[in-house]
């Protein structure tokens, strides 16, 4: 009887320690999760900023201005444009 009790005590101690460690691990993982989520939010903010920046740089009016002004480009004369029809089996 005493042997059985001792064995059970041992099992109990192991279980208790297991519980403590797993709780600790869970806490650690959770704080890591929180950190990553905060990072995700930061990246989200940055993504938004970059999207805005991209669309501001890509404004047609701006492209037109840079192309004609800074780069000296112009629309080709339509006589020098050839439209090639795609050979599709339509």
């Amino acid at each position, binding site marked *: 009887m005493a042997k059985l009790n001792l064995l059970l005590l041992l099992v109990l101690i192991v279980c208790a320690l297991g519980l403590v460690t797993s709780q600790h691990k869970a806490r650690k993982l959770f704080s890591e999760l929180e950190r990553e989520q905060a990072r995700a939010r930061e990246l989200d903010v940055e993504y*938004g900023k970059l999207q805005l920046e991209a669309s501001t740089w890509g404004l047609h009016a701006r492209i037109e201005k840079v192309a004609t002004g800074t780069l000296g480009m112009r629309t080709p004369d*339509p006589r020098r444009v050839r439209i090639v029809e795609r050979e599709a089996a339509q």
Partner: protein
Amino acid sequence: MSAVATSSIVRLPVWRARAVMAALLAAFAVLAGRSVYLQALHTDFLQGKGEARYSRVLEIPGTRGRILDRNGEALAISTPVQSVWAIPGDVEASPAQLRKLGALLGVEPRELKKKLGDISRDFVYLKRQIAPEQAEQVARLGLAGIYQHREFRRYYPGGELTAHLVGFTGVDEAGQEGIELAHQATLGGVPGSRRVIKDRLGHVVEDIESIRAAQDGKDLQLAIDGKIQSLAYGALKAALVGHRAKAGAAVVIDVRSGEVLALVNLPTFNPNNRARLSGEQLRNRALTDSFEPGSTLKPFTVALALEEGKVTPRTVVSVGRDPLRIASYTIHDPHPEPGGISVAQVIQRSSNVGAAKIALALPREDMWDMFNRAGFGAAPQLGFPGEASGKLRPARSWRPVEQATMAYGHGISVSLLQLARAYTMFARDGEIVPLTLLKADAPAAGTRVISAQTAREVRAMLELAVQPGGTAPRARIMGWRVAGKTGTAHKQENGGYAPDKYISSFVGLAPASAPRLVIAVMIDEPSDGKYYGGVVAAPVFAQVAQGALRLLNVPHDAPLEPVPLPGEGEEAKEST
């Protein structure tokens, strides 16, 4: 005494022991009952109360979907921003710190003090929606009693170009105008929530459960082509400035799919900064305003006459030297032709008398039916808030003079978009196409209104109108054949027609051999002395058509020779 006591056992009455026993049992029963009451019957309530001491429900915002143009370029984006709020009673800050805070937030120190002065309130916004970097600096001040929370702010990279179409949202991100309002259900995110355990300092230490997952709104892709939109905006703006006009609108429609490729309104506004907005700027003239279209309606009258076999393009209509009199009303023509002109010339030169005479040969019910099937008098069903349906009175109320004037677009009102849509019947060989503001890609099925034969005949007449001798030679472009009709109508004011205020318009198709685009342009009150649709609106059409056809890689159907521009005042004049 003690001997007596020990020797004679006192026999207590049995009932006393029983009474004690019963009392004890009753006490236990009460305890058991109470515990059952607490543990079994009230457990949820109590557990909830217990958890409320440390668990909190956090809201997880759902992001609003983006609005994109057909090439995937963003027209509306939500980006996270911070809102700064305070519990006035808890704020501990020195005057220097408050000055710094005020400077960071861009709030006057006096106003800040006023906001923080009311200690009875336990929530006050100091500033909503500031940039994340700014918020970071505010957080670094480390002031007690001042908090932040995350919100989303809507930005419109397209700015004033697409302001009317895209619309805007309020501070809480709910759509208030335009597409933002019409597609609120698709775009709007649904916020979720989760339950967490917070420690004394407010840090989240454990996640208990996710109550509801946040749902992000869906992106919406519009039919608008940013490049064509930008092109139309530029051309229209230049015309407005050049002719000192009050307002204007332009619409570009892809004939095959019914997609609206561009929709421009002027004056416009910057949706990113709506501090000072007037109703004039907000008006979406192309969609929600209707006007008397004038001569742009003549082709429908002529199409009906052709369809009913009353005339052929070569039938001669006599437009004598004298104006046409109906009852007490007189219809004038600027260019009387003693010999009469053909039906095709009625369109080419925009003859009012000719159109009126053709109309009088038609049953008024048929004319009403034609206008009705062309989509006038009914909203175009784009799913846009406040679409105008225009005005088309029932045929039985038309008097002959009204039937005659309606032939050239008086006594009827339409929106610019309705007009453009109606012209798809000439572009699609007799079919009118349902329009869409959303990207479709696939060709749309149309509804037949007139025969292909009639549609082609009218198209040929519309092509004559842009040739020398027509009303709009300025609509021609290099490389493609175009066709179209001008309109110049007196504006209605106080129940009558204003003698010196006009609406100039032009609706055209290009390329004429196999139409791909319908472009409609309307310019309100040009006031530099020129007001004919062929002079004011047609050049805008030409500019937009030239650019749009090139952008869409539409094959040329005309020799690549520069188009000679007519000299000042050489085009045929029209009176409506």
